């Protein structure tokens, strides 16, 4: 086993994730540009929300962090080391990943789903069991009641909670979340957002979260990065973001207000 692991918070003041001039094109000969010269530094403990419409490149940017995608040009650094030079398995096991459709393993019960990375990392049974109970309590599920259930015996909200528990299981310093609450009904979504906000503050992890919902961004983010057509168009703290002068920011704020009034 490699000694290379993600050390986590408090290592130094250097960014834990950094994009340096990153571009990404899809298609066989790079025919479809998706990201265009992104430079962005994320410090340990920040909750950065990547905000933007669909097609803005948010998910692509997220997937560059755990090398699910490789940049066409430029470099992505995690803990100061280019992802291209990381042992990709070690890199990914140190980064929690939560997606909209959760992707729980339907043939594993909740316990096995949650303890997957610890078991891949060959933790002792006792340690796995202890951690399982811990993370289940963190996400507000009774470890004993849910342990033996299969994913298809859970509600949408419960499934998403298990997804978060699974991502937290090996205690990774970085958490990547792609529209984590996007598939839930509005009431469940609001509950989970609120709970997750408290959880995130308590855990102090570096979180990069993708959403198209300004309200979610303002609730969860300590910093908001607005993306459009593969570029960063605004980057500010959650407090100062809504008052930024950029037209696109104002467009966002205005449209969000109308949807609030509508509902």
């Amino acid at each position, binding site marked *: 086993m490699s000694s290379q692991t993600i050390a986590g918070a408090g290592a130094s003041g250097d960014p834990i994730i950094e994009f340096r001039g990153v571009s990404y094109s899809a298609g066989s000969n790079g025919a479809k540009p998706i990201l265009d010269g992104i430079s962005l530094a994320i410090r340990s403990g920040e909750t950065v929300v990547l905000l933007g419409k669909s097609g803005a490149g948010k998910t692509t940017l997220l997937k560059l962090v755990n090398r699910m995608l490789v940049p066409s040009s430029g470099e992505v650094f995690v803990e100061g080391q280019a992802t291209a030079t990381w042992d990709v*398995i070690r890199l990914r096991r140190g980064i929690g990943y939560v997606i909209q459709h*959760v992707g729980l393993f339907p*043939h594993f019960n909740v316990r096995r789903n949650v303890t997957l990375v610890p078991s891949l990392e060959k933790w002792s049974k006792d340690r796995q069991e202890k951690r399982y109970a811990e993370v289940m309590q963190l996400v507000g599920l009774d470890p004993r009641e849910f342990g033996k259930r299969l994913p298809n015996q859970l509600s949408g909200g419960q499934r998403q909670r298990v997804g978060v528990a699974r991502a937290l299981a090996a205690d990774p310093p970085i958490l990547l979340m792609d529209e984590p609450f996007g598939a839930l009904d509005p009431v469940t979504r609001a509950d989970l957002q609120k709970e997750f906000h408290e959880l995130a503050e308590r855990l102090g992890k570096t979180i990069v979260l993708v959403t198209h919902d300004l309200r979610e961004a303002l609730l969860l983010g300590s910093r908001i990065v607005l993306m459009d057509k593969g570029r960063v168009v605004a980057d500010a703290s959650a407090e100062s973001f809504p008052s930024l002068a950029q037209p696109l920011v104002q467009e966002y704020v205005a449209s969000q207000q109308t949807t609030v009034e509508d509902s």
Partner: protein
Amino acid sequence: MNFWQFSVSHQKEIWAATREHLTLVFIAMLIAVAIALPLGMFIVGRPRLQSIALGLANIFQTIPSLALFGFLIPIPFLGGIGTRTAVVALVLYALLPILRNTCVGLSGVDPVILEAAEAMGMTERQILFRVRVPLARSILIAGIRTSTVITIGVATIAAAIGAGGLGVFIFRGVAMVSNAVILAGAVPAALLALAADYLLGWLERRLRVG
């Protein structure tokens, strides 16, 4: 003499032929599964290899079975008269359904689940054996089921090259123009096929996920 009378008076012979038949099918299926399952796992996600392998398996399937037995007779090692040749021919027939279902099953796993598995730092191997195979297992069994039923039928032709089995009665009955003798081979073969289909169908349903 009608079918029943013949069956009763020749029951020992029929049982022996049934055992021979089952042995042929069992050995052929064992080899076919041992080839097609790993091959399928290897070629999935390699489109070029996959089309070559499936194409070849397809060709074997389209050769009329009697002709395939005939073609094999002059081939050294694999061919000749008797059981070995029959097993080779049956294996060639059995490959396609298993191979095709293995490819379809393994590549048909929900991409969201595969994405999660990859992002959690599972290796290719771990994804194959802990995610793809368990999720595709009922489809894999379905391929083996189709294959087994086909093999039980085709194995009746093995008698033509001296491999024995229930086909012996069918060929003898045809030569004697006796329905009773043909049925003494055909009915047990049909019952074997139905039983195999039922058992493997039950297994397939049991192993289905979700």
